[in-house]
């Protein structure tokens, strides 16, 4: 245990395969998570995000390979006690419908040895203070999600697993939710979040793990992903009225002109060609009035990796 703390590695996957019946849902998964990281698992439905989480939570066992969480195999009974340090929000979380929100949270709190006052604080924090007396059966999707978040945060977990946490939350709550994660992050918590878009916790994610059909397509920080992807950069060049097509003709062969209208045109070029092109455009003098550089959007980046996996 102390060894893994020294390495600061809280989760590790080593050649993990997971097969259900005849279907292989995870193939050759290898990755480590360092303490304090915020990892976002990205992929379509059925890409293996939830399967990956269940392995880390010890709900399932790998068909082959090793999973370690906090230095232990999470599926072993020896790992039961360390679940105290763990919080989990399942995708479309289910509760005991007949219990009130407060009763549900109190039940989970007792299992974790958390106090009554902590429950009350959490209920206030997620904005369920007034609804705490109502039966969970009457809750909306968003309220369930918030209750789910409250239970995941019981006992200040070191390790937080959130499966599609922001579905069903309105934008204000979503923002609020990110702030909550920030706070845990500040205390040094590690979080694993699954999502089907790169927009999820964009700025907070230390690394994205992109999954497709049970295989890790790639992983890295947003910057690293941009570098890996040879996505074209898009430029919008504004010129004096009527000059657009004339200037566009002088762009050279390295660019791809998208479209031209009267006073501007759009083009794309490879990242590597970007600086020479900008220098060239600047040298054109008075004809060019303005220039905008648009880096590839997250959606394009995501689509790129999804397609790359196909080929």
């Amino acid at each position, binding site marked *: 245990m102390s060894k893994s703390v020294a390495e600061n590695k809280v989760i590790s996957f080593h050649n993990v395969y997971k097969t259900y019946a005849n279907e292989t849902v995870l193939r050759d998964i290898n990755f480590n998570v360092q303490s304090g990281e915020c990892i976002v698992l990205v992929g379509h439905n059925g890409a293996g995000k939830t399967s990956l989480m*269940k392995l880390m*939570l*010890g*709900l*399932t*066992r790998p068909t082959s390979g090793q999973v370690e969480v906090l230095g232990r195999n999470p599926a072993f*009974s020896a790992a*039961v*006690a*360390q*679940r*105290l340090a*763990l919080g*989990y929000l*399942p995708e*479309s*979380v*289910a*509760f*005991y*419908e*007949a*219990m009130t929100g407060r*009763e549900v949270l109190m*039940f*989970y709190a*007792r*299992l*974790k*040895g958390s106090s009554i006052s902590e429950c009350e604080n959490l209920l206030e924090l997620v904005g369920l203070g007034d609804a705490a007396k109502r039966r969970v059966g009457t809750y909306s999707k968003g309220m369930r999600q918030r209750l789910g978040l409250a*239970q995941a945060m019981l*006992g200040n977990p070191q390790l937080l*697993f959130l499966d599609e946490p922001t579905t069903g939350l309105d934008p204000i709550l979503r923002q609020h939710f990110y702030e909550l994660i920030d706070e845990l992050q500040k205390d040094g918590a590690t979080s694993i979040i699954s999502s089907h878009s790169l927009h999820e916790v964009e700025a907070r994610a230390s690394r994205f793990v992109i999954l497709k059909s049970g295989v890790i397509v790639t992983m890295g920080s947003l910057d690293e992903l941009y570098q890996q992807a040879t996505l074209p950069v898009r430029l919008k060049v504004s010129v004096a009225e009527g000059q657009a097509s004339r200037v566009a003709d002088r762009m050279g062969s390295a660019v791809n002109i998208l479209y031209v209208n009267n006073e501007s045109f759009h083009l794309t070029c490879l990242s590597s060609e970007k600086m020479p092109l900008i220098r060239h455009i600047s040298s054109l003098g008075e004809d060019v009035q303005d220039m905008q550089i648009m880096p590839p959007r997250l959606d394009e980046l995501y689509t790129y990796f999804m397609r790359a996996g196909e080929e």
Partner: protein
Amino acid sequence: MKISGVKMLWVLAQKELRDGLRNRWIGAAILLLGTLAIALSLLGSAPTGSVRASDLDITVISLSSLSVYLIPLIALMLSFDALVGEFERGTMMLLLTYPVSRWQVIMGKFLGHVLILFIAIFAGYGGAILIMIMLGSSLEGWQAYLAMMFSSLLLGAVFIALGYLLSVLVKERATAAGSAIGLWLVFVVLYDLVLFGALLLDEGQKMSQQLFVTLMLISPTDSYRIFNLSLFDGVSDAAGIAGIASEAGMSSSLLTGVMLLWVIVPLVMTLFVFQRREL
């Protein structure tokens, strides 16, 4: 903060207990068992003029004959949904990410459900006897009545355990409900029907008494019946089977042991399946 295993069991048991109170389950069971006990003891005391048996002895005979059908049914209703319901709704998945081990989940539920049954039986049957005493009934034979309450609880525990086994084996709640009825029919009705049918057809040719006794002993419901009808002289005299059980070598501890085994074996099997289950 480390929570002790015992406290964890209690937290889980308490949840089941509260569920039982909240959905009026406990109240309904108390009412049902209590009403039946009063009705049977009122009915039972009517034709006893010429028989030596006290009121309570007669009540034990009729009430245990009815309990053998009713208690398994109540226990199965409590337990068939206990695991498959949580699998299906998805609450089990979340529960198992908490610092509870799987045996604690099973035993916590078991403790809770046995407590519910304890309350129902002791408040229902016990309450009935209090009312009977207030109505002027004699207390003679109370030991047999108390033994019946405890053995009813044990019989209930058997069917809670069997219900769990069924609940962990099936894939859907609907299947569990259907199988629970099937299980009840087999254990409470069909087994005896087949056994006695075989005995009648055989006319004492091949089936030895020893085999018949063993086959009866194997069944938890028959063990319960024999236990209640033969444990106390007053009851067995009134039932007309005085001395038969002890002649056949069926002591009360053997009968209790059989029922206990019927609690432990299904529970262990449930745990075995549950431990291997992936969610």
